[in-house]
């Protein structure tokens, strides 16, 4: 079974009989989340005073930029049925390293590069424990969440470094000339394109889905599962390190407790965007919409004077609903499959069990 065969002929046959076009478009999780985002934006534009200000776009994108960035590698990791809970601690560590090195008199770009390098090494450490030692990523990154945060807080104590070169802090806050869109979106868009190509258009990307669906099958079809996962944790560390440098500049503030709890926001947005926590399913455009949805909702609710506790409750309910709806869709899908007939159903089941090894 080649990749082309799975993508076109059998799939089309199966779909043509099972799901009408409107259903295929409306009932994917990505489309649903994008539609929800559009609804939230429209409702906020109509109902929330001052939401239509250019400042809204600027502040919104600036604040969620670290989450947008980290969500990219996190999507890949969760698709392989792993998780990285240490990302926010890497942001904090990278922020502290940026601060300490800048204070020590290093030129800022060098300090930033070293901070990203520290993030990369931290990610490699996670990858080493997961792939070489063979520990579950949940346990490993709960550990390194505490470890990296501990190092960050230990290095700087409860103090903050707030003196950074103005040309760099200004750059972090600057907009693309003539637009209300912050400059940080440029590296994000570049990274997003790279990750989208990697995930959706390369054998490497297909191997991630295969690992997430069935890592034994993936292994026997010739995918180096360990190396693939290692690479992803390294990418996660590097991107988190970069997000740490950005966070530091945006708030002119290097603190050990920076971005505390952000890992949960990132993971919530990734799951909301349609990535299955059980691996093997998800797409980047859904994740980007998921991050934008959480950010837009928060921004609109704050403007409407809703308190942060209520915003957390609403975000939580939304997340649960999205997970429930995913289960509901899966159930509907199974029922439809059963109705199509035993023969075809059996073929589908076989294909699912084999984990689409070539994809």
């Amino acid at each position: 079974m080649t990749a082309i065969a799975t993508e076109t002929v059998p799939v089309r046959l199966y779909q043509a009989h099972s799901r009408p076009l409107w259903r295929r478009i409306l009932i994917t999780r990505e489309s649903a989340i994008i539609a929800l985002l559009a609804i939230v934006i429209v409702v906020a534009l109509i109902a929330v005073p001052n939401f239509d200000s250019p400042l809204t776009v600027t502040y919104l994108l600036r604040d969620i930029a670290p989450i947008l960035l980290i969500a990219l590698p996190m999507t890949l990791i969760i698709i392989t049925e792993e998780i990285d809970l240490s990302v926010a601690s890497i942001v904090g560590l990278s922020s502290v390293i940026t601060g300490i090195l800048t204070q020590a008199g290093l030129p800022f770009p060098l300090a930033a590069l070293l901070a990203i390098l520290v993030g990369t090494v931290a990610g490699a450490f996670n990858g080493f424990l997961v792939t070489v030692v063979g520990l579950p990523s949940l346990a490993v990154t709960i550990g390194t969440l505490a470890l990296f945060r501990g190092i960050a807080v230990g290095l700087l104590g409860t103090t903050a470094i707030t003196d950074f070169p103005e040309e760099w802090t200004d750059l972090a806050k600057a907009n693309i000339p003539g637009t209300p869109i912050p400059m940080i979106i440029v590296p994000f868009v570049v990274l997003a394109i790279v990750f989208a190509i990697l995930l959706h258009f390369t054998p490497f990307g297909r191997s991630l889905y295969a690992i997430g669906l069935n890592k034994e099958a993936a292994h026997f079809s010739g995918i180096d599962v360990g190396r693939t996962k290692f690479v992803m944790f390294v990418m996660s560390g590097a991107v988190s390190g970069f997000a740490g440098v950005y966070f530091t500049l945006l708030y002119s503030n290097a603190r050990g407790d920076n971005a505390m709890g952000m890992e949960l926001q990132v993971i919530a947005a990734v799951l909301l965007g349609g990535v299955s926590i059980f691996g093997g399913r998800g797409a980047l455009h859904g994740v980007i919409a998921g991050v934008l949805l959480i950010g837009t909702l928060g921004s609109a609710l704050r403007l409407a004077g809703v308190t942060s506790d209520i915003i957390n409750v609403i975000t939580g309910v939304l997340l649960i609903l999205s997970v429930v709806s995913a289960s509901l869709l899966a159930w509907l899908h199974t029922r439809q499959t059963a109705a199509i007939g035993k023969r075809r159903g059996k073929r589908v089941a076989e294909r699912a069990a084999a984990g689409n090894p070539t994809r």
Partner: protein
Amino acid sequence: MFGMKRTRRAGVATALALGVALVAAGCAGGGSGSPSDGGDGGDAGGDVSIVMLPKNLGNPYFDTSTGGAEEAVAEIGGTFEEVGPSEASPTSQVQYIQTAAQQGAGGLIVSANDPSAICDALDEARSAGVKVVTFDSDTNPECRDLFINQATSEGIAKIQVDLIAEQIGGAGQIAILSASANATNQNAWIELMEEELAASHPDIELVEVAYGDDDDQTSFDKTAALLQTYPELKGIVSPTTVGIAAAARYLSTSEYKGTVALTGLGTPNQMREYVEDGTVTAFALWNPADLGYLAAFATAALINGDITGAEGDTFEAGKLGSYEVGADGTVLLGDPYVFDAENIGDFDF
């Protein structure tokens, strides 16, 4: 995975459309937003809209100051809103500062979680026309228009010396139970207290400065140690809310209750039972309700253009009377407030 290609196409199309919509919304906002911002700015002259941003929400101390500010805004005749994060971190305050700027608020009253981390956000808010007043916890002076200072170090030192001198009859041994040995504000107060004792109360002898590290148990143990080491001890001054409460807890169940005096800086809710059972006669802190009340009047004066925040500017603050802006854009609330059996029932923080 089935039908991925098609859904991908649909998804990409929707994402693109959405991206365009978002940019369009931003640009449309850019076109129509500026004149309306100008309009809001014009309104600010007559209509006072004040946003209050404490360090965090759900904190009784800040609830009390917010109550004071709300009362003031009601007297002034404006709109008032309290916003804030649930945890006291500077980066989570930034979002609320941004929101106030987006809303075109006339003034923002903020207790800073970090003196410099919220500066850039405050600068942006100020360039959007928001007057910024700090209270309780200041930022760097260049980041705000005014700071409403609850009390000076001199005032805090003097009230504590006055209280202990009164409670022990002006003569005898006293000790200080501080927080940690390197706490900047504590050490400044202790130094000023020593000067005040030397100048005004030569018969009072300060025998030891003990450190409870702002930890309840350590402070409790240090209190016990002080009383054993100095049998003649007449009084303890604890210029920290953790220390004074722990010392009061020790004294209230010991033989020294009512014979060894205790005073310092405490909050009414922590000290209420010890005032009621006679362990403590009087202690000091500022009145956070008055602090919020004064901050709101100062903000309104800035919004209405009555003052600019320059040294020597004066404004009226309702029931509190007239105030003058001091050096570095600071307005002093006044002497610390003394809590005793008479008034402690009026406070809940």
